[in-house]
């Protein structure tokens, strides 16, 4: 034989497993998603714009995106504080608090939804004292915000945690030895090192909150134009058999989700460039 093929692979099964992977991926993920976009092409551009810019749709999108952005901002700050405390400080119950950060990942959204609603209802454990102060949470946009904060907690914490743990202690000591005070060290040395991870966590929390359904609809009140989120509007349009409307809203949300994935990938690459290989 005149040599082997240079493209031969050492381990067996590449063709078979890759073939199965692509087939399965196509059937379960790509085909259904392609169907969605295909459906949206049945609409003319004018129809599409009409649907998306109708008052109710626009308001639903504004509520979903706007509140998700605010909730992700809160997650960014609170997540930063939480991850710092969990990684850098010892305090009683630290390990348990560390473990339960993942609760919003693991708890079914419907359960989270009814629990938060009951907690923040006007006669609830937290709702009652807040009502005394004149703050109403359940069945208002504030409730949506609260639910979105809840489901976003793990994202910032879990993306930043490994980076903060791996951070070389010597860079802080170097900064201190060069005369930086603690605040300067944190703001000029540590925070910039954590920035890509913080932003990635922010983007992930934002994307999750935008699409969130289960934990939000119970607490939202679901008043059109006031506290109706985009995913709920999709469900409503579906139940009215207005498939075109549902599809158009879904396409807008998907495109934003893809943009976020793209941004996250970019940030990850950026982060890798900034960290020298070990």
């Amino acid at each position, binding site marked *: 034989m005149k040599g082997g093929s240079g493209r031969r692979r050492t381990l067996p099964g590449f063709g078979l497993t890759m073939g199965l992977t692509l087939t399965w991926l196509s059937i379960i993920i790509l085909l259904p*998603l392609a*169907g969605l976009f295909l459906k949206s092409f049945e609409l003319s551009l004018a129809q599409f714009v009409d649907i998306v810019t109708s008052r109710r749709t626009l308001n639903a999108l504004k509520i979903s995106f706007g509140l998700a952005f605010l909730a992700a901002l809160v997650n960014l700050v609170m997540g930063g504080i*939480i991850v710092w405390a969990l990684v850098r400080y010892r305090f009683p119950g630290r390990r348990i608090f560390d473990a*339960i950060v993942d609760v919003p990942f*693991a708890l079914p959204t419907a*359960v989270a939804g009814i629990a938060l609603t009951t907690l923040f209802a006007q006669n609830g454990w937290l709702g009652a004292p807040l009502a005394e102060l004149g703050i109403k949470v359940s069945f208002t946009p504030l409730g949506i915000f609260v639910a979105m904060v809840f489901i976003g*907690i793990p994202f910032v914490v879990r993306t930043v945690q490994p980076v903060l743990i791996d951070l070389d202690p010597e860079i802080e000591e170097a900064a201190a030895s060069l005369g930086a005070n603690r605040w300067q060290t944190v703001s000029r040395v540590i925070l910039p090192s954590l920035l890509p991870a913080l932003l990635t966590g922010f983007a992930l929390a934002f994307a999750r909150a935008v699409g969130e359904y289960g934990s939000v609809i119970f607490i939202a009140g679901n008043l059109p134009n006031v506290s109706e989120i985009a995913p709920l509007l999709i469900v409503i349009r579906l139940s009215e058999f207005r498939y075109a409307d549902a599809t158009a809203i879904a396409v807008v949300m998907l495109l934003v989700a893809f943009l976020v994935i793209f941004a996250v990938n970019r940030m990850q690459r950026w982060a890798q460039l900034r960290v020298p290989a070990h």
Partner: protein
Amino acid sequence: MPKPAIAVPLERTDARSEPRWVRGLLIGFTILFLTVFIVLPLVIVFAEAFARGTYAYLAALADPEAQSAIKLTLIVAVISVGLNLVFGLIAAWAIAKFEFPGKTLLISLVDLPFSVSPVISGLVFVLLFGAQGFLGPWLQDNNIQLLFALPGIALATTFVTFPFVSRALIPLMQEQGTAEEEAALSLGASGLQTFFRVTLPNIKWGLLYGVLLCNARAMGEFGAVSVVSGHIRGETNTMPLLVEILYNEYQFVSAFAIASLLALLALVTLVAKTVLERHLDEGQRPSEH
């Protein structure tokens, strides 16, 4: 190098710590925030479930509708976790053990369902199989019921839980490299022998980890299933859907009783996950260092 699962104890040098009051403030914030947003919601689930005593709680769970929802949830979980287990293993082998162009893109595609709103994950199947959908008329002609039935629910759940297994395995298998598989091959093992005797034992904890998270999500999925289920009482309601229905009917004890089972599942998953992470951390220590 093994990465510590939790932070290594730090020396209290001035260079690396904050003033006492700052530390106290940050710890206080952390405890307060996590208590309000995570501990209290968990506690209230069980408090409400047992609000009328143990008897009412057990009665709510014994209700035929609850029983049928529990059964359906288990069946759906077995189907979608089983499918994703097999295909997750296959995908992880193809992606982690070989180099090929477009690898990053493929990983992004596998992860895609994580970024899709659950409602949209259900919608895509309605658009495919629904009466107005692409395959709807054909399915109707052949008398095949996918939507508002078990197959549709299982499909939507499989879509939503698609990335869990492969995502848990790919980084692990990439880190382990291919040297052990190459050694097995050079010692005369066949491809399947190599996989079952060398690769699988090395990734068993990671696999269990992925399956566990996949299962938790499969049992708890709400949005996607809600869209494709049709909410037929006693037939197409999974546990999360039944929670919604009971809650909207002001049957709070029953709603929270079912919810408490799901919360328990989440807590068990988290405990198992924490234990597994410790295992994984040890397992990842490569033998050569």
